[in-house]
């Protein structure tokens, strides 16, 4: 089914099941510990043994010698796979450095050996007696010193990433007020709770990987590329993931080493990346330096805006697009956006939840707060006067459905923004300095082709199979809701099977495209199943009404079970009419913070996000996506930073004690409001994702609240108290 014109009324608009607050259908499994994650698949293949990964102890250089003799002699050891003895594996999608093989070291904790043993303890003990001698080379590890000479980023489409509209410099200098500030964001880690894990088993040429991966179809191909084998001989199975956030978009070392180890040992091998390896071995959100220049009139209207971003990556890696939201969010005739990319020898940077935009908002939306102050204008009003219904640097492109102003007004009203103290550092509540901050949010609303198979059995039960994944987002439930809606059956009559590459290929989970795309594919399959049922029973499936497990047709009715067992596949693809639109999601975010006037410790008191993302398929799981992203925003703003050792080139705080993500005590009750909107351009579902919108802006709302509380503007994230303690107001 091709989607080639904006949606009119369709089956989805009945909305009897979709759009209703619905408990997750996988809840009973997840809350009882019976949902099987990758490393726990004891039952899928007998004879599993354990792999333990050794990571490189240098950031850049060569392995001069590796002595595994003592390790091989350790009890229980079945095989040792070493990088020097292995030809560098191929690169899959999103791999910058080879995941394994050869003597060259591209980054710290790159995998250099796998010990396979009968037990985990034996594999771990043996790995500790592998001796490695390195030839260390000098590397570039400091973004600040590499940035000034960095060229324009050409990793997105091959062209230098710079867009000019009008004459920015002239307009900026002529503006009534000017703002020119620099902001830095640190390297961040996904730090999902389930470490990357895989069980690999060979059957002749055929490889099965029970793994934890967001993108099944992509990575079936990638495993083929990496191991130089036919993708048809690869099966991936990933029904449950313990979080991903972009860190499991691609194949990583756990899967590759499990496969190589299984081949070497002649046994199925399970590998879980040890937690201390994850931060340097896998990908991270790259640090950024961002410069914002904004010129505005007395009325707050922006006449000139420039946003330039610098990031770094390994050779061949892509840059962080921190300016993306600035091209969409605010009007202004004279514009400049650019991304520069430095070469660094740190571990590889790649996508983490809302890549580019999460960091970009941390600069843009603080700059807007600073501009509002210069103009003596309400920050909410400043954003409202600069709203636009067409893309500022491509005016011929209109937004498909943009309700940012409603988000801003409704958020301000609900949060009690009018009560905000306008004098920074001027409101005390006992020992607490109190502040409020806000920000706008934008994240694009992508959609991609997605397929599914839907089966009807003789008891009228509907089973959906698609390789879509549920990374905590609620895919199981919205897919069940979709099938229940279109096939006219109760939700409990639907079974959903996900994550197996044997199922039709979905869009997968990433870039907040998963919900909109995968449900559209299921919709297409259900429409085909309705037609197949109609063909069998002699009616037009498109014209019939499927409801309550019955089918009403002109002059009669059937029970769904009259159709017997049937199955249909379907795929939703998209026509190029969408090129005429910018499809995005919008939000306003608000935060109230309390800062201890004596110690400088900050505590979030309240948070609110008002989101405009089209139809909300399941308000329960959508709200959870947003509150979770708000929590991750608090971490990004206040605590999270991969500390770089600039001498030796690695992230020092590479565990869950040193890399500080928010805990219960950091997060108060959070409010989320969804506007009741429908976007007819994105898909027949008229629904857009929200999982990344929630991390686009709350960061800046927290930062702006901290400024409002203390009167101190810190532009280097995270905003830890050591950066402002000595400047707090006198107590």
């Amino acid at each position, binding site marked *: 089914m091709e989607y080639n014109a904006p949606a009119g009324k369709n089956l989805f608009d009945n909305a009897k099941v979709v759009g209703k607050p619905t408990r997750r259908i996988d809840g009973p499994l997840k809350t009882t510990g019976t949902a099987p994650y990758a490393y726990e698949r004891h039952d899928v293949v007998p004879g599993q043994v354990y792999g333990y990964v050794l990571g490189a102890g240098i950031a850049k250089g060569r392995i001069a*010698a590796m*002595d595994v003799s*003592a390790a091989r002699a350790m009890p229980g050891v079945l095989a040792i796979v070493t990088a020097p003895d292995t030809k560098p594996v191929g690169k899959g999608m999103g791999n910058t450095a080879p995941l394994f093989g050869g003597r060259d070291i591209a980054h710290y904790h790159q995998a250099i050996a796998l010990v396979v043993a009968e037990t985990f303890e034996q594999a771990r003990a043996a790995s500790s007696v592998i001796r490695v001698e390195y030839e260390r080379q000098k590397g570039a590890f400091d973004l600040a010193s590499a940035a000034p000479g960095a060229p324009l980023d050409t990793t997105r489409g091959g062209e230098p990433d710079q867009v000019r509209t009008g004459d920015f410099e002239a307009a900026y200098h002529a503006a009534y007020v000017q703002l020119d500030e620099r902001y830095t964001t640190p390297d961040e880690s996904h730090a999902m*709770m389930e470490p990357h894990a895989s069980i690999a088993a060979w059957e002749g040429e055929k490889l099965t990987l029970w793994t934890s991966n967001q993108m099944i179809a992509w990575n079936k191909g990638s495993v083929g590329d990496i191991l130089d084998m036919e993708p048809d001989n690869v099966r991936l199975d990933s029904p449950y993931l*313990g979080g991903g956030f972009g860190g499991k978009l691609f194949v990583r070392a756990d899967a590759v080493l499990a496969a190589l180890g299984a081949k070497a040992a002649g046994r199925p091998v399970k590998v879980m990346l040890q937690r201390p390896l994850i931060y340097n071995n896998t990908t991270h959100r790259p640090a950024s330096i961002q410069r914002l220049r904004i010129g505005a009139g007395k009325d707050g209207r922006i006449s000139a805006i420039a946003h330039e971003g610098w990031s770094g990556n390994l050779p061949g890696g892509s840059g962080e697009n921190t300016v993306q939201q600035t091209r969409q969010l605010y009007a202004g005739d004279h514009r400049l956006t650019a991304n520069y990319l430095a070469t660094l020898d740190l571990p590889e940077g790649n996508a983490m939840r809302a890549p580019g935009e999460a960091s970009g908002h941390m600069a843009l939306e603080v700059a807007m707060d600073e501009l509002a102050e210069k103009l003596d204008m309400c920050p909410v009003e400043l954003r409202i006067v600069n709203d636009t219904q067409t893309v500022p640097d491509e005016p011929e492109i209109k937004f498909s459905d943009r309700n940012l102003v409603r988000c801003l007004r409704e958020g301000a009203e609900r949060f009690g923004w009018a009560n905000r103290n306008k004098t920074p550092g001027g409101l005390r509540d006992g020992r607490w300095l109190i502040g409020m901050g806000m920000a706008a949010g934008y994240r694009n609303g992508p959609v991609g082709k997605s397929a599914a198979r839907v089966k009807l059995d003789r008891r009228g039960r509907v089973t959906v199979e698609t390789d879509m994944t549920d990374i905590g987002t609620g895919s199981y439930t919205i897919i069940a809701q979709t099938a229940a809606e279109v096939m006219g059956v109760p939700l409990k009559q639907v079974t959903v099977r996900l994550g197996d590459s044997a199922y039709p290929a979905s869009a997968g989970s990433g870039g907040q495209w998963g919900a909109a795309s995968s449900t559209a594919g299921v919709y297409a399959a259900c429409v085909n199943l309705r037609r197949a049922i109609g063909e069998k029973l002699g009616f037009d499936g498109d014209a019939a009404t499927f409801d309550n497990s019955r089918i009403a047709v002109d002059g009669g009715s059937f029970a769904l079970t009259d159709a017997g067992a049937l199955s249909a596949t379907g795929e939703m693809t998209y026509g190029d009419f969408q090129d005429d639109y910018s499809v995005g999601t919008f939000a306003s975010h608000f935060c109230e913070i309390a800062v201890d006037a004596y110690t400088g410790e900050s505590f979030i008191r309240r948070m609110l996000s008002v989101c405009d993302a089209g139809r909300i398929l399941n308000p329960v799981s959508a709200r*959870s996506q947003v509150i979770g992203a*708000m929590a991750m925003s608090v971490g990004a703003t206040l605590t999270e930073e991969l500390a770089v050792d600039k001498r030796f080139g690695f992230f020092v705080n590479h565990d869950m004690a040193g890399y500080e993500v928010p805990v*219960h005590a950091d997060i108060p009750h959070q409010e989320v409001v969804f506007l009741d909107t429908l976007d007819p351009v994105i898909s027949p579902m008229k629904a857009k994702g929200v999982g990344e919108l929630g991390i686009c802006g709350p960061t800046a709302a927290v930062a702006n609240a901290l400024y409002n509380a203390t009167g101190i503007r810190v532009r280097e994230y995270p905003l830890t108290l050591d950066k402002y303690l000595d400047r707090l107001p006198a107590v």
Partner: protein
Amino acid sequence: MAGPISLKVTRRGILAGGAMSAAVSQVALAKGQVETPSAPPPAHQKVRLTVNGRDRELDVDTRVTLLDALREHMKLTGTKKGCDHGQCGACTVMVNGERINSCLSLAVMHDGDEVTTIEGLGTPENLHPMQDAFIEYDGYQCGYCTPGQICSAVAVLEEIKQGVPSHVTQDLSSKMQPTNLEMRERMSGNICRCGAYSNIAEAMAKLAVES
């Protein structure tokens, strides 16, 4: 009882190691390296414990953590490994009624102990009230930290009931209340990267009020 693993050097071990390295290592050895002797077989020990009401007897490598004994030996995989270093709380179980990080404890330290895991609290068909409350308030997303969160949540309400003080307890002399702040403080050893905290607090509040 077996002591720590012996690192006694034997001539046979050295010879075996040397032969192995000559046979299989294709990597040149650097000058001056000394062969490490092969280690003796790992020490094993029997341990008897009660898990979710069922008596278990295991003969385990003394290095096996309680977490891995549950997950790898008893196939009770509801208890999760998030960090294996006591930093995340995903492996929380109750031992003799108190919650612990099972990754920080060796199985052989638990001879005679009563262990309750998430599987012992309830099943999909017969949920514990806390499991039901987590579903009602959507107190989870990816589900990986969830068993640990639920075990902790059950234990936290019990700790408050018993008057065990925490870092944020203001008044030690009167009856302790299950306030939002008390619960959040006590739950802070259980990390949820999906960020379901606000909903977990509501699930716990429902049960705290009911009890």
